[in-house]
């Protein structure tokens, strides 16, 4: 017992205290956090405000005024007010839907408003209308030579032209076939893509306004462009799932996010430990330290010790990642989306999945002499790893379908399937949980038994890696 502990402890420490583990497993999430933070910071950084003009060549003669209006300070102000209003609305709806408190909703809308302010104050653009007779080629050539950044231009020079828009008559009046032509927008180099997008949108909106106001039918009906826009806006749905317990508000994408997150967490912690187990077993064989170890411990003690040691590695990863996730949920007061019992199941199914994968890894590691040879024997393990990926969507979409229920009792993949179902949108029938756990435990016993047989013989075999028939023979040997 003590020997098994020593083996486990060595396995654990020699895995944890390597650069690979520390950088790969511990630092990666940290680095990602830092990078994400840095990106968020730079996004909020206010760049220099762009001051400039947009030249409009209006061949239709009906759009230029609309564009001017849409770039006027009054319009910009009301546009901003409307955006802020809609953000408040969304936050309020969000609060109803997924149960945010008033404070959280206020915080969310505050963040959104900041973003709006930032975006809208990026540029101060005026419109200059040019006659359609102007030399477009010369104007384009001049635009190509412009540097729009103020610091690169001589002091006191007038604001530069940043774009030329050409609105053909066909953009407002359709052809005989009912087809509208596109408008053209030429921009100077280095124009911020957000500003360019806004220019495009405003011109497009002005063209649509011109189409509406110039249409005889609409004029006769007395509808304004605002009326038309309100009419054609597609409504949003208020979705809810009906369960026996009552209405359950749909969290939308979160319905897939939670099962996916749990499955990934399980898969990652199981695979990391399993992979290390394979590597260390092959290393002990290829460095010929195996027989030295076997003079002190029995093959069973060695195998159990190694599995337990790597299980601790997997547990470290699982605890760390799920801990970070739970901590961030608590910080953002989102904990209610996560039933704590799910964490208990996560650990139960981790043990089942890990022992199955680890037994197979130990068997493969003991049977081969080099890492390269292990690849060919990894097929059953790869199947167990790949299937949850393929099953994640269909099962989280219909957690209680016959297919999902059957998959919950397939040895090897059932821990992953159960985790997807348990975190899904519909409650799993109570009886299926213990039955699936039982199936898992039975498969653990069978896997560990078979693996210990293969391990005992495999660890001292060198040379050609065994085929499946040989492995079965080893299992059947006393």
């Amino acid at each position, binding site marked *: 017992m003590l020997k098994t502990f020593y083996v486990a402890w060595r396995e654990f420490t020699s895995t944890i205290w390597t650069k690979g583990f520390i950088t790969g497993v511990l630092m990666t999430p940290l680095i990602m956090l830092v990078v994400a933070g840095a990106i968020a910071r730079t996004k909020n950084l206010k760049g220099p405000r762009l001051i400039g003009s947009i030249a409009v060549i209006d061949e239709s003669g009906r759009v230029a005024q609309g564009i001017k209006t849409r770039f006027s300070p009054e319009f910009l102000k009301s546009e901003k007010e409307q955006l802020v209003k809609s953000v408040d609305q969304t936050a309020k709806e969000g609060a109803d839907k997924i149960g945010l408190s008033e404070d959280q909703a206020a915080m969310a809308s505050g963040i959104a408003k900041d973003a709006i302010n930032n975006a809208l104050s990026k540029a101060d653009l005026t419109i200059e209308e040019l006659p359609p007779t102007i030399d477009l080629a010369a104007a384009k050539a001049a635009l190509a030579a412009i540097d729009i950044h103020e610091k690169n231009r001589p002091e006191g020079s007038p604001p530069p032209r940043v774009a030329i828009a050409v609105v053909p008559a066909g953009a407002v009046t359709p052809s005989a076939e009912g087809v509208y032509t596109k408008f053209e927008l030429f921009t100077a180099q280095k124009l911020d893509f957000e500003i360019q997008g806004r220019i495009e949108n405003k011109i497009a909106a002005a063209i649509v306004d011109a189409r509406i106001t110039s249409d005889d039918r609409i004029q006769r009906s007395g509808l304004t462009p605002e009326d038309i826009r309100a009419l054609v806006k597609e409504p949003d749905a208020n979705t809810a799932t009906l369960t026996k317990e009552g209405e359950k508000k749909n969290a939308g994408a979160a319905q897939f996010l939670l099962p996916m997150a749990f499955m990934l967490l399980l898969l990652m912690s199981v695979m990391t430990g399993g992979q290390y187990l394979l590597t260390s077993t092959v290393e002990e064989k290829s460095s*010929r330290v195996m*027989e030295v170890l*076997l003079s*002190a*411990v029995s093959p069973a003690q060695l195998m159990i010790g190694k599995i337990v040691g790597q299980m601790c590695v997997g547990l470290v990863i699982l605890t760390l990642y799920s801990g970070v996730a739970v901590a961030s949920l608590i910080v953002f007061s989102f904990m209610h989306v996560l039933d704590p019992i799910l964490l208990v199941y996560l650990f139960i199914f981790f043990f089942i999945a890990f022992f199955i994968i680890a037994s197979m890894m130990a068997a493969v590691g003991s049977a081969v002499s080099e890492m390269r040879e292990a690849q060919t024997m990894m097929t059953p393990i790869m199947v167990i790893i790949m299937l949850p990926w393929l099953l994640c969507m269909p099962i989280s979409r219909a957690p209680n379908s016959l297919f999902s229920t059957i998959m919950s009792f397939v040895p090897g993949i059932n821990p992953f399937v159960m985790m997807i179902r348990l975190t899904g949108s519909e409650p799993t029938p109570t009886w299926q949980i213990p039955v699936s756990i039982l199936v898992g435990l039975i498969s653990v016993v069978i896997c560990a038994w078979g693996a210990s047989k293969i391990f005992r013989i495999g660890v001292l075999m*060198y040379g050609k890696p065994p085929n499946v028939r040989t492995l079965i023979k080893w299992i059947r040997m006393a």
Partner: protein
Amino acid sequence: MPDAIVTRRLTKTFGPKLAVNSLDLNIPTGSICGVIGPNGAGKTTTIRMIMSIIFPDSGELSVLGKASAVESKDRIGYLPEERGLYKKMKVFSFLTYLAKLKGIDSPAASTKVANWLARVGLGDVARKKCEELSKGMQQKVQFIAAVIHEPDLLILDEVFSGLDPVNRLLIRELIDEQHRDGRTILFSTHAMYEAEQLCDRILMIHRGQKVLDATMPEIYARFDPRTMLVQPIHPDAADSLRAIDGVIAVDPVDIDSFELKLRDGTDPIDAVRRVAMAIPARRIELKRTSLEDVFIDLVQATGDQTIKREDLRTNTTLEQPVHA
């Protein structure tokens, strides 16, 4: 005192190959026994079965009075033929880890490891990684791993292979010391010279079968020397030597010596007397039979003419005798 190792009709096959064939062994407690034989003779298989690392197809064995070495693993020190170290582990941690696996508690393990490293002159590499050591240093580390827990029985497989003469001598002294401390030692080797120097018992295996199992004195008595070395005072003594009763051949060796071959059945002591009477000699020496000769005799007696002297040596340059 019961024998440390007893085997009865021990048999092991690997597929079609009969690796060990109905082997009976008795290794008395406190003895130092060498297992010799060419490559593939079944030495390592026998040792692995004794260590319960592999299991016999049939036959019985008892190790330190138990039916399996598993039950007395902590009382056995084992240096396997396939030996290695954790490359990335520090020498000191590796040895304390193995000491703890062999049942020594943590503080005692550190002290013992430090003492042993100092004894074999590896004190200054304790904090180095195992992969940084030379091959000879690694061998010494592995030897320490085998004896660190003061076992009653020490089993050493190919203990001298790959060592330079200086380290062979060091290991020989360490083994001798273990023997003097009363431990039973079983070791396999190609190095006949070391075996002759160290052992009080020899076990010869050929093609999985025991061809000899005897104490050194028994071997010397049974395989009485057929060769005599004579250094006459007068160099032209060849004819006189040839005339002596029982001498069938006289071959000159070196500048002034002759090797005399004796007829089967001739009492060597009488032959010495007759030579001394026949000629004045500076030296008359009855050459002691070498294990190599004995082995070849025995194998050829079984009708196997294929065995060559080279088969008994893995690396002839390294297996040259070292005189203390």
